């Protein structure tokens, strides 16, 4: 339960910290940390405009996406505390809950009947398809590393496996989780949420026709998703057996650091050319595959 609550708290600050980091890095005064939350409150107070082309799918999609993200949060542990729901192979359900949410976003974009919406939907679905192997190979590596297939048990046993390569796998895991989070949340280098040209948009063009309450749900979902990946990174960095108060403080610190890393990356890194993205994403799967092969060799399971 603590992990669930902490993810919600972290999600409140996450987008604000990204904004502040970008503002400071570019020498601007910029908005405050709570500006994204204030924007959500404004959206919640507003009415809505729906396209006459859209139907039921478009209207329910943001709610479905948010609920899938909330359900995925329930599968994440915090240090020694088990997740609200934990079972063998729960990371598969975690991944497919996020995919279900994305599926609804994609079909909602197609429901608008807009060329731009369809184009963005095609691109986002394609990138998700390419990034999925990286996540699964990475999780399979951790499963081989610890001997378990549940998030709660994997992260509990990560630092007590007696394996000397824990640091190496921790670093690979952090790098891949950061990159997967960036792709899943449609951020640089594959997408730029600040772009104003529909032709170059990916995620933003899919949600162009949303307004008011539904748009607020989409933003809340995005912030929670960032905090979810922050939580995964935290579980790889901090050993499970540490003091609870220290764990809580470290959790928030890791989330803040993750947000700063995203802010700084987006300040100093250019967006990839669209045709370079598949290669970039497949490279992540290749890194995960190398890590997987190494763990197979280390655990004598290759032959």
């Amino acid at each position: 339960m603590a992990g669930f609550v902490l993810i919600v708290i972290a999600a409140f600050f996450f987008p604000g910290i990204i904004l502040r980091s970008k503002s400071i890095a570019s020498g601007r005064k910029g908005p405050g940390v709570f500006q994204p939350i204030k924007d959500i409150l404004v959206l919640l107070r507003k009415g809505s405009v729906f396209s006459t082309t859209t139907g039921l799918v478009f209207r329910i999609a943001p709610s479905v996406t948010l609920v899938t993200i909330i359900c995925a949060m329930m599968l994440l542990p915090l240090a020694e505390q088990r997740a609200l729901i934990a079972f063998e192979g729960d990371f598969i359900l975690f991944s497919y809950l996020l995919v279900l949410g994305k599926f609804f976003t994609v079909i909602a974009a197609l429901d608008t009947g807009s060329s731009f919406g369809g184009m963005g939907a095609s691109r986002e679905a394609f990138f998700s398809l390419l990034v999925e192997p990286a996540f699964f190979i990475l999780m399979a590596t951790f499963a081989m590393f610890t001997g378990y297939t549940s998030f709660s048990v994997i992260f509990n046993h990560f630092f007590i496996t007696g394996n000397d390569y824990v640091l190496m796998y921790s670093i690979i895991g952090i790098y891949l989780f950061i990159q997967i989070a960036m792709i899943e949340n449609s951020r640089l280098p594959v997408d730029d949420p600040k772009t104003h040209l529909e032709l170059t948009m990916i995620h933003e063009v899919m949600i162009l026709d949303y307004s008011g309450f539904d748009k607020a749900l989409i933003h809340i979902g995005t912030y929670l998703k960032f905090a979810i990946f922050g939580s995964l990174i935290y579980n790889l960095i901090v050993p499970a057996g540490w003091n609870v108060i220290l764990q809580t403080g470290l959790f928030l610190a890791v989330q803040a650091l993750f947000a700063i890393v995203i802010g700084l990356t987006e300040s100093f890194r250019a967006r990839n050319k669209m045709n370079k993205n598949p290669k970039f994403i497949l490279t992540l799967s290749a890194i995960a595959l190398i890590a997987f092969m190494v763990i197979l060799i280390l655990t004598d399971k290759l032959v």
Partner: protein
Amino acid sequence: MILPQLLTVLLILLIGLGSPLVVKPMFELVAQNFRVTLPTMETGSLISNLSQISIMGGIFVLSLTSLLFYRYYHLKRRQVMAGPTWGCGYTAATPHMQYTATSFAYNYNHLAKPLLQNLKIMDEIREDELFPSERKFESHSDDFFRKNLIDKPVDYVSGLLKKIAVMQTGHIQQYILYAFLFMLLVLLLSFLKII
């Protein structure tokens, strides 16, 4: 007509959301009828996993229903308007013309090129052709598996049957001759102890 469909949907939902309720009796049935001893540890673990998934399914359905209800009441108290889809100057005559399935699947087609074998037929526009004349554009996507696993064997068999069809003359005396030749062949093969 709707009742059987609803019943099917309910059964699908029961299996999907309440899988332990279905799997447990199924295990018992299999164990009893096929005399198989299922390891208690494994079945117990499987049912426990399925129970957790069912709980998650329940939470999902309840949360979604609650959120949609809240959304309904939330929007009821606010102004809701309808307008055209944002097209940024590229709006087509009807929404049906906006985006095709081919366009959506372009990236995937590109990935699966060897399997899909996309074929585009069009006369390229020459450099000296200032005002291009009317042209036709065709694109086909052959199904690799249908072509190699179904079409080719079927073509082969139908070709073989066509060759055999020369025997189908319509003369009854020739059919009797075939039967006679067949019996002769069987007799010969039996004599030579081949069959």
